[in-house]
């Protein structure tokens, strides 16, 4: 248990450094900015209490906000994603349920399951993020395009990262 907490904390620091130092500086075609810090929210254990999940999401988003001059935006989107996480896990649970003591990782539940899981969360997070940023429905489809394009990039990097983690 303690071992796992330390591992997750290390992962958190690593992901934050990656996000702030590398990925915040990537801006494909002025449109797309991958957000891989979401992987941390994805990998939190199943049995984490709801309030803790929300609190961690909030703090994670807030830290990213501090580094990208966007007060509250990431906090809003990440809390939203954190709130939806248990529901999504319930919808896509495998037939014989989740193994106790395991985290939602690619290693345990396979690529296909993890892909669906991550795609749902990333889409929800990005939709909240981009629509709260634009804050009007005038450019609805343009914003949707941004959501989808950014989601594809974020998802690819998250899967890559998770794949590498699995290999270790």
């Amino acid at each position, binding site marked *: 248990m303690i071992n796992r907490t330390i591992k997750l904390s290390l992962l958190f620091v690593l992901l934050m450094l990656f996000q702030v130092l590398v990925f915040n500086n990537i801006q494909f075609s002025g449109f797309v900015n991958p957000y891989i810090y979401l992987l941390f929210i994805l990998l939190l254990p199943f049995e984490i209490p709801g309030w803790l999940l929300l609190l961690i999401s909030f703090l994670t988003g807030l830290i990213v906000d501090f580094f990208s001059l966007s007060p509250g935006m990431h906090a809003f989107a990440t809390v939203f994603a954190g*709130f939806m996480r248990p529901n999504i896990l319930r919808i896509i649970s495998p037939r014989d349920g989740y193994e106790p003591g395991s985290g939602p990782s690619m290693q345990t539940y396979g690529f296909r399951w993890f892909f669906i899981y991550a795609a749902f969360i990333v889409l929800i997070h990005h939709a909240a993020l981009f629509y709260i940023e634009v804050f009007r429905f005038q450019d609805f489809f343009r914003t949707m395009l941004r959501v989808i394009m950014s989601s594809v990039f974020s998802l690819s990097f998250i899967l890559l990262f998770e794949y590498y983690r699995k290999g270790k």
Partner: protein
Amino acid sequence: MRNLLNFLARFSNLIFFLFLEGIAVYLLATGNHYHNARIGNSVRGITRGLESRISNGRSYLNLQEVNEKLLAENVALRNRMERMIPDFNPGFSSFTDTIFNQKYNYTASEVVNNSVNRQKNFFTLNKGYRHGIKVDMAVTSQFGVAGVIVGCSENYSIAMSLINVDFKLSTRIRANGYFGSLSWDGHDYRYAVLSEIPQHVVVNLGDTIEATGYSAIFPEGTLVGTVSEYEKVGGDFYKIRVALSTDFKKLHYVDIIGSLKKTEELDLEKLFK
């Protein structure tokens, strides 16, 4: 009472969720661009320090390109100076009042943080009020208008980028002098929209757009961009798409321009309001 407690226990997560989202929205609503400069030096100090370090590293990678541009600029400036120095009349000694005719004061600065992919883009500069930077000073790159300072701390300042949906700039067409208001529509970081140019004016593709100087922020004639496309909207005005001369994705070395006579100008204007 028990029912109430049951209710709270059942929906505690939802309530906590709404509470946290409330905080986020509050931050979002109060955190306009002034917020960033004020957010408190503790957190800012840490992130800024880190960002300067990143920026330091990155500037090494660009040195070659920057050097070439500096050389070109040096040559241009030297040529201009040659033309201005009078080489006649060596017998008189002249007294130079250095700020007699000087209207603007330039400070070179470096961009340490920048974005182009949001609706409200800002960039951070490594000069603050210790270097004489104040709110409402103009920021230009060597290619033209870049932004306006909106907040200063001791060593850093934050500028609202031209590609920020809140940014408005009074600009005119150099060829015929008609002026209108330039703003960014939030779509492509390479283009902005110039409106309020009446339809009887002749507009050509490639016409130069420059700042008017009416705002007393940007020096008159600062380059903004060129006309890339125009269409008639409604019955009165053009909608002109302007290709910006500054590449905001490559913004690194900029000048901060303070107007020395701005207060005088504004005070005079205030008398007649």
